[in-house]
Structure formats: C-alpha cells, structure tokens
C-alpha cells in the first residue's frame, strides 16, 4: 500500500518548511529511517527521515517550495504500484486541510503558498558589485578612511588598483560623481531605485509571527540598572592573560560572565526562572540560559544548560561552538528550546541600553548595553571615571512582579561587581 509522506514539524515552532534538497529521486529505494530530504525550518536546515520503507514513487514538491506542515511531499510504496488512489487523495487536499503546493494540485481553495518561478533573491536583484571570491573588500587604508569620513559604502565602489584594490582615486571619483554610491543616510541619491519585494525566509516569518504574538499577549515591564563593571573588567583581563599564558585556547567575554552570573542568580532567585502556562506557573528546576545570536537573516537563541554549574571557560567554549553552528543553521531543536531566561547583548555595537522582547515561554530577558567609561560620583562624593554597564530586565508581569525582578538584579549586580564569586 502506497504511503503519502507529508511535511513534518521539524521544529517546535514551524508552520511550514522549505524544501532545500531531495536526497532521493523517483524510483530510488528507501529504508526506514533513511534521510530523504533537507528541509529549511524557521530555525535550521534539518534532515527529514522516512518512516516507511519502499520505493519513491512520486515526488510532490520541488526544490524551493514552501510546504505547510502536514502537506504532501512524496509517495512511497512498492515499485510499480498503482498510486492513483493516493494521487486522488492529494488532489482532494489530502494529508491535511492545507492545499498541496504542487503542480498536480487542482484548483486549490486558496492559492498555494508557492511561487511557480524561483523567487528573486536579494543578491540577484540588488545592484551589488562583484566581490572577491573570499568576500573581502580590498581597499587601501586611506581609501577606507576617506570613504568612511564621507559616509560612502566602500563595497559599492569599483577598485581600479591591482587585483581590484579600491584606491584613493576611486573614492575621490565616487565622491565627485555624487550620491550614487553613497549611503542614503548621509547623502541624497538622485538616481531612482525601484522598490522591490523581498520574500520572507522561514526564519523571518517565524520571528514576525512569534514576536507579534508575544508582544500582544505579554504585559512587559522593564527594570534598568547601572552596574559597576570595573572589577569585572580587570578580573576578565587577568583571567584572559592567564588563560593565554596557559595556552588554554579560550578567551572569556563579558557576555560569558553575564551568562554565568545570570544562571547563578536564577538558582538563588528561582522565581525568575518560571513560565506562565495559562492556568499555572511552571517552575523550572535547572538554570538554562539562552544567548541571542544574530545570524544571517535573523536571530536565534541557543541555550547554555545548567550554566550555573559550568566554569566560565566551559561557557565561553560552548557559546562559541553553539553560535558557530547557529550561523550555519545547524542547531538541533533541543539546542535552542527549553531555556528559562535569555540574554541579549548589543554592547559590542556600542549601544548604551535597550529593552528586549521576552523569548517565550521564558518570563524574563536581560538586555545588556556596552561596558563604557563614564563620569561617576564615588563614595567620597568626588567625580571620578567609572566603568559601567547598563542592563534592562524585561519581565512578563503575569509571572513575575517588580520586586522579584529587582531582587534578581540585586543578586546579578552582587555577582558581577564581585566577579571572584563567579569562580567559587
């Protein structure tokens, strides 16, 4: 009996998946558990395995198609088997109520969410300059400086030097020729550039849907504090010097310290480590901390599990490894779900402070600004130079009250302002 293979929910939050590649062709035999396709979900590119064995009789989707969960993908059965019954089921919207996104689908109730022609990619449409194979923009130092001083995007300038190096002359000519290559923020463009539609990636769709949902359903409140990071920075410097001397291959970042401190504070103040579940609160037993990682086309929050029990160098190594795979879209679902708390750090962009939207089902997220030198009044009432970091804790008021959030921040402050506590 021929079986209809449908799109599986390969991530906890996916509604549809994009077919990246068929690993089987029509006529190929398939074992149970064998990988038949690669599917791009909202979070990662996943391998989809077959629950059936037999021969691939029909592929119902094409590379690049976006296929709703439950919609038909392929038919597997015995070689030579009659599949007209199954095809009829497909044509009647089989597998799920969603219309089948295939050419074989007849008159679906709503247009299938697939474009027949390959979607134009931003790369193809944008007027980008040819780059070197390794993606580097090669420019002389003074060319870079002049471009930067004048707000020009140097990547948009043609290089006339050896190997296409962008030299001073090229930047000066670009400046003379007006705003065509200038960033719109700085100079006016006189050439009209047509608007274009950029198709949403699975990730962008999920971000849009989930954050709208969270924003509409979760009453956020915000607590901002200014931490003294002087000791933490000198502690980190010492630590990294010693790690370098020991050739440990690890360098602890400020963020690694915040992750560790947050997990320790969660353990001490578990009231922050909860999820609002409609009719009850779920108290998490362990301290798992999500770290927001910007990746191409969006962001993802891999989880450092039991971060309170891990050393700073373990946390550092783990985050680097997770972030690397996140950028390659190779994270497994269990690596980015199940956190109790998240951290979003924009310090490296020089952001003073900001507020983040909670990553459900967590009840709080910490937004960290840059560690910077600023004038402070010291304990003697004198003006001095301090090292400070502003953090803003966003809390789900259904689950957490102001005092709970504040207590958590007090503990977090104690740990980061006395950084040796992070290693005892």
């Amino acid at each position, binding site marked *: 009996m021929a079986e209809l293979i449908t799109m599986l929910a390969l991530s906890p939050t996916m509604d549809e998946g994009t077919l990246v590649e068929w690993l089987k062709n029509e006529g190929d035999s398939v074992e149970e558990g064998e990988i038949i396709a690669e599917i791009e979900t909202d979070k990662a590119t996943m391998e989809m395995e077959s629950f059936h064995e037999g021969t691939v009789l029909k592929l119902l989707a094409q590379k690049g198609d976006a296929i709703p969960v439950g919609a038909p993908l392929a038919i597997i059965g015995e070689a030579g088997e009659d599949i007209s019954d199954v095809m009829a089921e497909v044509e009647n919207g089989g597998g799920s109520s969603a219309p089948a996104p295939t050419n074989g689908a007849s008159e679906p109730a709503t247009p299938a969410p697939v474009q027949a022609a390959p979607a134009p990619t931003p790369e193809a449409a944008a007027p980008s300059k040819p780059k070197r194979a390794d993606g580097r923009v090669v420019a*002389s*130092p*003074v*060319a*870079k*400086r002049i471009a930067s001083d004048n707000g020009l995007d140097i990547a948009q300038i043609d290089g*006339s*030097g*050896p190997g296409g190096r962008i*030299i*001073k*002359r090229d930047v000066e000519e670009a400046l003379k020729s007006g705003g065509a290559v200038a960033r719109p923020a700085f100079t006016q463009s006189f050439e009209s550039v047509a608007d274009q539609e950029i198709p949403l990636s699975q990730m962008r769709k999920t971000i849009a849907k989930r954050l709208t949902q969270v924003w509409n359903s979760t009453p956020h409140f915000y607590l901002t504090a200014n931490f003294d990071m002087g000791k933490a920075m000198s502690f980190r410097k010492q630590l990294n010097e010693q790690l370098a001397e020991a050739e440990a291959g690890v360098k602890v970042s400020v963020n690694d310290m915040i992750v560790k401190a947050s997990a320790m504070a969660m353990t001490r103040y578990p009231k922050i480590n909860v999820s609002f579940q409609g009719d009850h609160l779920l108290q998490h037993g362990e301290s798992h901390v999500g770290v927001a990682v910007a990746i191409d086309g969006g962001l993802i929050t891999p989880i450092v599990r039991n971060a309170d029990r891990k050393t700073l160098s373990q946390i550092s190594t783990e985050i680097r490894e997770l972030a690397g795979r996140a950028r390659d879209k190779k994270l497994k679902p269990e690596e980015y779900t199940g956190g109790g708390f998240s951290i979003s750090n924009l310090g490296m962009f020089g952001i003073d402070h900001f507020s983040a939207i909670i990553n459900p089902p967590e009840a709080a997220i910490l937004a960290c600004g840059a560690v910077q030198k600023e004038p402070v009044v010291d304990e003697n009432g004198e003006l001095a130079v301090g090292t400070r970091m502003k953090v803003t804790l966003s809390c789900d008021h259904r689950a957490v009250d102001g005092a709970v959030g504040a207590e958590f921040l007090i503990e977090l402050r104690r740990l980061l302002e006395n950084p040796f506590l992070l290693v005892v």
Partner: protein
Amino acid sequence: MRKILFRDALNEAMSEEMERDPDVFLMGEEVAEYNGAYKCSVGMLDRFGPKRVIDTPIAELGFAGIGIGAAMVGMKPIVEMMTFNFAILALDQVMNTAAKMRYMSGGQLSCPVVIRGAGGAGGHLGAQHSQSLEAQYVHCPGLKVMMPATPYDAKGMLKTAIRDPDPVIFIESEILYGSEGEVPEEEYTIPMGVADVKREGADCTIITWSRMVHFSLDAAAELAEQGIDVEVVDLRTLRPLDKEAIRKSVKKTNRVVVVEEGWYWASVGSTVADFISRDLFDHLDAPVGRVHQRDIPMPYAYNLEPLSLPNKDNIVEAVKRACYVD
C-alpha cells in the same frame, strides 16, 4: 650666492669650528701632509699646525680609539676615515666604546667625537670599497648618524656634528665631493634630526638621503613631465629620525617610496618603511615602495655598477607603481 664644492664646504666647517673652539682637532690617514685622500683638509695643516691636524698610521681601530679616548676627556676630535669601508675595522671602538660611554658611566662621561669620511659607491672601486654602511651605525643606540646631500647641508650639518655632545657618524658620499652648490659666507648651522624637503609635490613622497637625493630629484623631474608631482624629502639625519617631516609629507601625498643607495635587507629604508606602515597606516593608498641596491656585492665591472645601484629609471618606476600609473 657663491658656489663652492662639497669638499670645500666640509673644509670650511672644520676650519671654522677649529677657529671657534681650541678643543677641536682633526686626525686620520693622510689628512695633514697629503691634504686628505679626498682633499677635504686642504691647507689645514698649514693653518692649524701638526698638533691639531694629525696624520695617523693605517690603523683604524687604533686611531679611532685615540680619538674616542680624547673625546672622553673633553676634546672634540674629528676622526676622518678614508672611507667607511675601512671604518669596519674600528667598529669595536665605535659601537662598544663611543656609543656606550654616556650610558654605562651613568652620564659621567660623554663622547663628543665626529667620525667622518667617504661612503657609498665611488665608481669602479670593487665590492670592498663601494659599500653603503649607514645601517650598521643607525642600528646602534648611542650613535647619531648624519648624511648630507649638498654642500650647503654638508657645512651646516658638520658644524652641528662637531658641536654635538655625543658621537656622530658623518658619512659623505664619495661621488659628491666634487659637486658644487650654493653656500653662504655667513655663519649657519643645520640642526640635528631635521629633514629637508628638497622638492615639494602632491602625488607621492620620496624619502631618501645623501647621493640618492640627486637621483630622486632627477626622477621627480622626469615624473613631472608625465604629470606626477613628487615630493622629495631628504632625511639628512638618519638617527634621530625626523618622524614629523615624514608624517607631514605622507599625510599630504598618501604614497611613499623610500630610496636608498645601500642593500635593502635590515636597512635604514626598511626601518623607515616599517615606521610609515605602522604610524601612517590610515594615510597610505599603496604599499610603501622601496628602491635600493641589488642584493649582491658591488660588481667591479664598470657597466654593471649603475645596474646594481638604484637609478632614475627604477625610481620612476617605483613612484608610478605607488601611484597606480601603468
């Protein structure tokens, strides 16, 4: 203004300083009776007598040591090396004694000696007598190094060198002794550590010294005909280096070629290029260009010597490369 020869400018500098200061004296091979191997001390024996213009044996280490010892007890000797090729024999006295006395005595001793003589290629003199050895001295803390390119600079710089409280290595391009230039009658000096822009330009800086200043000016003239406006900076003093002059010029032109007569490896030019690439990184439009002698002993063959030395053509070529002109 009157014009005099480079060697006569040196003679005037030494004679004027000997008139001015009774502690100044001249010693070296053939400086007295023969009036100097390159005729820099013509008439000085007659004028100052054998106690202040002293012929030495052919023993560079020995008479360098005598001069340096005299300096340590308060005299102001000018020690002439017939050429700096022979001064290699005196390196122990120069590097181990002269350069280090102020430091090792905690400032109790100084060593105001000038060690001067001919350097560089002189034409058909062979590998052992054609060397540009300034890098040897510039390398060593405790020594100051001056290399004039014109009679005017030669006189003003040598007077400064003689008055300086520390050992100064003063290298004169052998080929320039007979060159002529304007030198005023009146007293002047040229300060230690100050470069001179020998030609102003906007497109590319040539940094150079000594004989190569003239090669560079010739190249700049040819480049001007091709529309490339070159600035020629004559370092004059190699140590201490006039970093401000280099900064000022490179910030203006964004392109730089260092031209030196000597070999390129671990040389004055390589140190200048190193300084520029680190200090002026954001001002560079092209890698720092270099022109130098070929990395071989100087050929004796007359036709090969100019091919081994930098010349106008390869300076022109290097500047055009830095300016991205084919």
